């Protein structure tokens, strides 16, 4: 059975069929999407263990004198990504099937299917060309998904598109630079040939295009500006995909191409056993997470806030990976997977809130938890995981990342990461409070109710996954053992049981800790229910001391404290961060436009054509050395 080919071609076909025939029929198209992802998921599952499996195209493509036979090669890293992508898309599809009936939704299935089939190319490509093909098809369809043909979303989607095209162009440049140095377009071969070259400082330039391409895609620091914009404009049920999956392709690219080079000393110079370049990139990861964290404090749009959280998490992952130690890779990959799961869940709950209320402004929400308890619980578990608090999966991977940093004795880096990590707690709590807790708005009091069961399925699955991975990290890490062996992870860092977190500075038995936690929770619960009785009262009865707020000239309906939550903090720190990067890209666009205007004016001035042409001829002569 041809797995990859089937998935790719089926994806393209389904995309076409949906676009041609079922564009208006959301139910059929989402059902097709669910069937497609489920089918592909099952197909992919069968490939576990068959790491030698490959599929080659029959015919050979010539580029000039270069012969290329396209091959898709099964590999561990790609497989685990693919499984997660299709699994997550499957459940996301279930959610969207319910979501798409709402008036806020537009049919995005064809493009999404196209992206999924492109992702197979990226994950399993043996050569750079197929990788690039997948990369480009990951880029442009999202532009249309993000703006949905709406003018108000245009500039947001353009931020996304322009930056990602920059990444694509950089990738093209990088691919050919590698080709120039190795005379091959095969990824694995080119890595080994590059490593056999004598390392020199010039090799650094070779990697810069790849850095740009992958950092743009993963929304790392100087390029992170697209992430919040794209998330906030995209349809609510597509945001999980952007955050959970799309930005992970940058990480995948780094693991695929940059990590093998850097870890083997492709660029000379090391600092405490870490390649100097990688060390600085590690700090870039830290900067990414700190900047994103600080920006998230003042964000009022819930999707933007969570997008910043994604950027921050990408920062942790980059930090871990660029330590270029096996333990760092373990932590980085583990956090990637965990982040995929919990961020998808968080965005799905946000979509559920949006589905019922129709707004993404946190200051217009509040008290939704009382009407949507399942959604609230899912969100709560999601943010506990996102903050890296213990019984959830976010903690386990953060533990390994911290251990990896400490293993290299980068203590300052650990402190800086701690800042970002604690900051995450702040903005996540703010989202929890502003969306779900506090007082409910009168217009939501009757209209909002829990989402239908179909849309709850992914939430339940997500909750179970988050908690079970948090308690048994081995569920994820054990199947990955072949991969960790291949990168040379020392045996002491390989998980022996389901629940022992490895670490350089000590291990942790998550199961025991969870038992203790459960014990404490049960104890307190018993205590709470054993002692005196309690009875329920409406909100206003207590804090207003039984008086009607209207008597004091206060509208009782609007006393939800959400806007400017960390105002003292914002006042002190924000202007600096807000200015530097966003402004840079804004000015970039602005001046590009003016450059265009300037060029355009050359053509518009109709009288100058003669002398411009003559000047051209003169320049040609100058080139030839006649005048000078």
């Amino acid at each position, binding site marked *: 059975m041809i797995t990859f080919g089937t998935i790719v071609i089926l994806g393209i076909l389904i995309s076409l069929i949906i676009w041609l025939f079922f564009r208006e029929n959301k139910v059929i198209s989402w059902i097709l999407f669910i069937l497609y992802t489920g089918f592909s998921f099952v197909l992919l599952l069968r490939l576990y263990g068959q790491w030698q499996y490959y599929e080659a195209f029959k015919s050979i493509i010539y580029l000039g004198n270069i012969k290329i036979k396209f091959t898709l090669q099964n590999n561990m890293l790609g497989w685990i990504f693919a499984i997660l992508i299709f699994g997550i898309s499957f459940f996301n599809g279930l959610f969207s099937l319910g979501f798409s009936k709402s008036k806020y939704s537009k049919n995005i299935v064809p493009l999404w299917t196209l992206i999924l089939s492109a992702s197979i190319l990226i994950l399993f490509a043996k050569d750079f060309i197929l990788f690039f093909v997948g990369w480009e098809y990951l880029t442009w369809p999202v532009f249309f998904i993000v703006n949905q043909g709406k003018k108000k979303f245009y500039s947001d989607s353009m931020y996304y598109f322009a930056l990602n095209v920059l990444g694509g162009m950089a990738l093209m440049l990088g691919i050919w630079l590698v080709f120039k140095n190795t005379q091959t377009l095969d990824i694995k071969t080119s890595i080994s040939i590059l490593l056999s070259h004598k390392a020199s400082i010039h090799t650094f330039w070779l990697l810069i295009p790849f850095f740009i391409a992958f950092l743009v895609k993963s929304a790392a620091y100087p390029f992170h500006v697209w992430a919040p914009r794209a998330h906030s404009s995209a349809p609510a049920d597509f945001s999980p995909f952007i955050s959970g999956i799309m930005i992970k392709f940058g990480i995948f690219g780094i693991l695929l191409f940059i990590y093998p080079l850097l870890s083997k000393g492709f660029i000379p110079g090391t600092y405490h056993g870490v390649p100097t370049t990688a060390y600085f990139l590690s700090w870039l990861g830290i900067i990414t997470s700190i900047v994103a964290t600080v920006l998230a404090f003042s964000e009022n749009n819930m999707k933007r806030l969570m997008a910043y959280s994604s950027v921050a998490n990408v920062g942790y992952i980059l930090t871990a990976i660029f330590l270029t130690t096996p333990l760092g890779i373990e932590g980085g990959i583990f956090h990637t997977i965990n982040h995929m799961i919990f961020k998808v869940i968080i965005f799905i709950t946000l979509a559920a809130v949006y589905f019922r209320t129709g707004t993404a402004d946190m200051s217009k929400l509040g008290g939704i938890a009382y009407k949507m308890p399942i959604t609230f619980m899912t969100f709560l578990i999601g943010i506990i995981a996102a903050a890296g608090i213990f019984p959830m999966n976010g903690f386990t991977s953060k533990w390994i990342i911290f251990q990896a940093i400490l293993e290299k004795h980068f203590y300052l880096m650990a402190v800086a990461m701690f800042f970002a990590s604690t900051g995450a707690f702040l903005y996540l709590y703010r989202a929890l409070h502003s969306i779900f807790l506090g007082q409910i708005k009168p217009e939501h009091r009757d209209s909002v109710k829990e989402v239908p069961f179909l849309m709850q399925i992914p939430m339940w699955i997500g909750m179970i996954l988050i908690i079970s991975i948090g308690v048994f990290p081995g569920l994820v890490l054990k199947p990955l053992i072949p991969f960790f062996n291949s990168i040379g992870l020392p045996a002491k860092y390989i998980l022996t049981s389901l629940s022992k977190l490895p670490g350089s500075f000590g291990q942790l038995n998550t199961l025991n800790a969870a038992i203790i936690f459960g014990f404490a929770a049960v104890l307190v619960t018993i205590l709470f229910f054993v002692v005196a009785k309690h009875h329920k009262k409406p909100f206003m009865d207590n804090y207003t001391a039984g008086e009607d707020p209207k008597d004091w000239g206060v509208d009782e309906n609007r006393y939800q404290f959400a806007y400017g939550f960390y105002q003292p903090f914002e006042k002190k720190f924000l202007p600096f961060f807000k200015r530097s990067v966003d402004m840079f890209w804004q000015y970039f666009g602005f001046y590009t436009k003016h450059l265009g205007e300037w060029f355009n004016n050359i053509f*518009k*001035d*109709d*009288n100058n*054509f*003669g*002398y411009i042409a*003559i000047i051209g001829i003169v320049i040609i002569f100058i080139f030839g050395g006649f005048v000078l």
Partner: protein
Amino acid sequence: MFWLFLIGSIGLVLIGIFGLITRSHLIKLLLSLNILETGINLTMIVLGYQNGGKVPIIHSLLDLTKPINFVDPLPQALVLTSIVIGLGTTALALILIVNYYYKTGKLSLERSENEKENIDE
């Protein structure tokens, strides 16, 4: 003689270029173009000309056993073609200019107000 012709023809070329650069009046542009063309045609003739050369026609008075200093006939043929093409072009240009004049009432390619683009958002 050769150099005089050459300098003269290059001078004509330069005059033509000068006209093309500095004038905006369409008829003057066209005139400059024609001057340029004349200059280049003259250059061709000059380059094909041999000092003291004969007309390249074989007739009974010629002694074909001795080397004969013929003038190269090909450039002249080429120039003839070039002149014809130049004539056609000029005619077409004049028609276009006349049309343009009827359309806009102007004889130079100024930017007109009614074709302003609506660009800014």
